């Protein structure tokens, strides 16, 4: 259930992208997405029912039926049996965040809406079971979940309120940025090493060349 989701290559969503800082779509992308939504809105209600929603996600993602219906139930926060464009837009942003490995950034930037999505019962608290259920959406690893409840459950009720959740997102974001920095340094180190090797090689060749010339002139 927690396998990384992949968007179908060449599908319409595959061509969209999130702004890397704010994890939102540009106005142009939203306009295109709205047009796409209207194409799928066959009954002209400005909504997608569960059947259309299922076939859409089944076509563009690698999710299974249970995962798709879990997402539908999560997004259908009014219990109307249909989802509107707002929820559709939210879903697309989540999909793109996963596709582009921006989950931590996305949760950090949109902690309030994510919290409200996970808070199924509307109790302003999230239990561990909520996280488990939606693990495949945000790719939160089991180890991170354990840390989450161990380090951030300040009130000790084994559930997270919004402030505790926000602290968790800040912490995750810091870790993510450190990881990025470490990767950049590693890449930089490799490039420097490669440069040094090349320079050394050039020097050696030059010396050999000059050495040969000098010996020829002596002769």
């Amino acid at each position, binding site marked *: 259930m927690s396998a990384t989701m992949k968007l179908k290559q060449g599908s319409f969503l595959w061509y969209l992208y999130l702004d890397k800082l704010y994890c939102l779509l540009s106005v142009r992308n939203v306009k295109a997405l709205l047009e796409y939504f209207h194409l799928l809105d*066959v009954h002209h209600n400005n909504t997608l029912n569960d059947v259309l929603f299922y076939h859409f996600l089944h076509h563009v993602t690698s999710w299974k039926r249970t995962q798709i219906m879990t997402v539908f139930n999560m997004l259908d926060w009014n219990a109307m049996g249909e989802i509107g464009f707002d929820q559709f837009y939210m879903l697309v942003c989540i999909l793109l965040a996963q596709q582009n490995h921006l989950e931590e950034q996305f949760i950090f930037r949109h902690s309030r809406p994510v919290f409200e999505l996970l808070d199924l019962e509307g109790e302003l608290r999230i239990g561990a079971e909520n996280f488990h259920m939606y693990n495949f959406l945000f790719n939160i690893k089991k180890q991170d979940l354990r840390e989450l409840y161990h380090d951030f459950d300040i009130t000790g009720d084994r559930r997270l309120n919004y402030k505790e959740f926000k602290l968790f997102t800040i912490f995750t974001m810091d870790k993510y940025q450190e990881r990025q920095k470490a990767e950049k340094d590693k890449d930089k180190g490799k490039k420097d090493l490669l440069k040094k090797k090349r320079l050394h090689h050039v020097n050696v060749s030059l010396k050999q060349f000059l050495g040969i010339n000098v010996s020829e002139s002596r002769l």
Partner: protein
Amino acid sequence: MQDSLRLRAEQAAGQASLGSHGSDKSSPDNDIRNLWTRATLSQPKLNVPRSSVGEDSDMEGSGIGSKSRRWYNLKAGRDSDGGWEEWDDGEDKDSFRQEDLDESSLLELELRRASSLGSRLGEDVDSKTDTEMSSSESSLNISKHTPHRAYWMEQQNRLPLPLMELMESEALEILTKALRSYRSGIGRDHFLTKQLQRYIEGLKRRRSKRLHLLVH
């Protein structure tokens, strides 16, 4: 000398706009070209003073005159909420505006050429044939630019065709599978099933019509 040429050009342009047929001395081979030249010069749009051409290009969001905008408003089928104002990213906005200004300055240039060349329409000169050919070419250019502006205005507020094509083909695949679910779930005779079926057929027709237009 240049002043007299300019004066003659303006007079000739004025005569052409009134639809004067006083200078019908062309050879039979050039008759059609003459008519074409006079027809385009007589269009009221083209007698717009140069200053107003420049003003139109300065208007916000487009370099197109109000007439083209009205044409666009009549033509646009669906109302769009905001308008597809930027085709490219923000950094390309300036280059797009540059293009708009270039179009308007190009049109201005063509108008000037047309008016200066129009002065030779009625003259009995040796290079009459060449002049008439170049004047008809310039009027062709003018007529090419004017409809293109409305076309580009419309294109700005619509999604690009390849993107529409991709979206529609994908939607068609999804909806065809959904139709099977509808039939198995609620039956063929349910009104929702029929509505979906009609929608799919309409979408297919639209697509084939567009493909047919593209091919031809």
